[in-house]
């Protein structure tokens, strides 16, 4: 340790004690408390940050102002100057502490940038499309290249919407949830409550981990092949026709459930493991059988975590594009039937509108629809995340009430 040999009062002081105490001394109160010497006034960092912003803006303006250089200059100036000031005015330990605190905040800001940027760009481009009347309730039936051409060249309103894609996403995701939640829940109950660390449970854990890493397109191809095989075995359809016939909403749901099951198993397993063993024992000691203990004590105690985990898993798969494209295809009309005909999901809709605009030469209306659909998708995912938090709160074991 290469510290100053005699500890100054400031070096003994806790990190949180300084700001409030140092306020009066900076206002010129004559008698300084021995506890507050060697501390910086609490307003200093705001002043320094302000100074760094001005300096950063000036430096950036020299190079032709842009946001990136402005941010970089400001951050570097602030981090370095606050280190130097603390180092000279207080001591090295506080300076190092402050340096790392600043770096952590900086890393947080940088991590936040893509998120804010994505939301901002999607919202700013997508809102006009979203505000178009009928966007949420109409599908793309009857929207031809001529319609879009009229919109772009003659200023006619952009027609067409995402109703069919919303319904498709909703049905496919619901079906995927209905398939994967029972499987995932039962698998994790087996792992936590019944497995005794034997080869089977270790194999399940291993393969669940492997499944987590399966590329989503592989899941889509698997589901398509499985459904084609299933149809050829049970309805005798073979050849090229099977691929045609196996392109269904339910095939996409199977593909998504392949992606969802490992997530559900993992989160549910975690939640079941944190249920205190005392509760299980309390239930056994009352003469309750194991399956009833699991059903009535363990699951209700863990239900908030399980429900929010499932919601997050849904949020994770609702944005999948490739597996749905290869399994459910793409249509322009609304299809309510998972077991008959092709189906469009929201991400596939976005992909198609960008990749193959309805009118190849006049793509603006298609892009407007795609951005608006992307905004809707982000809003759905955000809503699901909020919903997960709400569930976690509502179902959480009752704590208060003393």
């Amino acid at each position, binding site marked *: 340790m290469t510290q100053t040999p005699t500890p100054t009062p400031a070096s003994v002081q806790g990190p949180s004690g300084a700001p409030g105490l140092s306020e009066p001394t900076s206002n010129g109160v004559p008698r300084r408390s021995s506890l507050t010497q060697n501390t910086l006034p609490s307003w200093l960092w705001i002043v320094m940050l302000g100074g760094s912003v001005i300096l950063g803006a000036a430096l950036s303006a020299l190079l032709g102002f842009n946001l990136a250089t402005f941010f970089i200059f400001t951050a570097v100036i602030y981090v370095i100057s606050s280190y130097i000031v603390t180092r000279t005015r207080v001591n090295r330990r506080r300076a190092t502490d402050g340096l790392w605190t600043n770096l952590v905040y900086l890393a947080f800001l940088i991590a936040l940038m893509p998120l804010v940027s994505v939301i901002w760009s999607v919202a700013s481009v997508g809102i006009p499309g979203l505000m178009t009347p009928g966007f949420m309730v109409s599908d793309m039936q009857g929207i031809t290249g001529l319609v879009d051409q009229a919109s772009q060249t003659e200023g006619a309103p952009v027609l067409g919407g995402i109703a069919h894609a919303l319904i498709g996403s909703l049905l496919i995701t619901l079906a995927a949830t209905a398939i994967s939640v029972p499987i995932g829940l039962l698998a994790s109950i087996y792992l936590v409550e019944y497995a005794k660390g034997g080869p089977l449970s270790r194999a399940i854990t291993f393969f669940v981990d492997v499944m987590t890493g399966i590329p989503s397109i592989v899941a889509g191809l698997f589901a398509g092949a499985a459904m084609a095989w299933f149809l050829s075995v049970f309805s005798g359809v073979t050849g090229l026709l099977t691929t045609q016939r196996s392109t269904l909403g339910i095939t996409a749901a199977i593909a998504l459930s392949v992606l969802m099951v490992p997530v559900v198993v993992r989160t549910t397993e975690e939640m079941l493991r944190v249920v205190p063993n*005392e509760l299980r024992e*309390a239930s056994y*000691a009352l*003469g309750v059988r194991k399956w009833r203990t699991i059903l009535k004590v363990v699951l209700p105690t863990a239900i908030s975590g399980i429900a929010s985990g499932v919601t997050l898993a849904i949020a994770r798969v609702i944005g999948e594009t490739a597996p749905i494209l290869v399994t459910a295809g793409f249509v322009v009309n609304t299809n309510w039937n998972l077991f008959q005909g092709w189906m469009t999901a929201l991400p596939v809709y976005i992909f198609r509108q960008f990749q193959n605009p309805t009118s190849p030469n006049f793509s603006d209306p298609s892009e407007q629809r795609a951005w608006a659909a992307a905004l809707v998708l982000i809003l759905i995912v955000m809503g699901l995340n909020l919903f997960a938090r709400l569930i976690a709160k509502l179902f959480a*074991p*009752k704590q*208060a*009430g003393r």
Partner: protein
Amino acid sequence: MSKRVDVIDLNVYYGDFLAVEGINMSIDAQAVTAFIGPSGCGKTTFLRSLNRMHEVLPGARVKGQLLLDGEDIYDPGVDPVTVRTQVGMVFQRPNPFPTMTIRENVLAGYKLNGARLSKSESEEIVETSLRSANLWNEVKDRLDRPGSGLSGGQQQRLCIARTIAVKPDVILMDEPCSALDPISTLAIEDLIGELQQDYTVIIVTHNMQQAARVSQKTAFFNIAGTGKPGKLIEYSDTTAIFNTPQEKSTEDYVSGRFG
């Protein structure tokens, strides 16, 4: 309502490890029996084997006979769940079910087993159980509040109420007061004195004054060293254990010269 317990040549294992060896004792009905001894000597392990809670742990097993009014609970044909409905247990740390209200906690033994109770029946069970647990007056106005909102001592009495609600014959208590303050401890000790009229009560305690206060008979367990099995050293009337112990190690332990 209350049954006697006879233990014959009982060995308790964790996997291959022999934790408690060669227990022979007879526990009286309608009396309080205390188990004392240093930590790790197998008191709790033995207590948990009395209602087949021991075998819930992976690898745990028991050899020997344990007679509940003459019927061996370790007979191969016996369902452990049946045993546990007759031998209730109160744990060291209060563990009311966090998802349930006070009322539901008392009725847990019925509700979790799917029993259907009429409203008047359940009202009666809740009131008599909470009254016997000396908790009725404190909670009668908030039966629909969560059980986890009670204080530690109240939670423990709620757990006792939950245990006696299913009308067991024997009640096992594993250091029921070790997580509680002296006032709550006093409340539980008074309660144990009352429970004794209807039930066989077996209590593990580290507090020798408590053993002396509440029990009629006391069993002293000891262990020869780490890794050795725990054994029953002396079992006699509580006054005899504390005043005229026959074994040297018992005398050392109760007089505080050891352990």
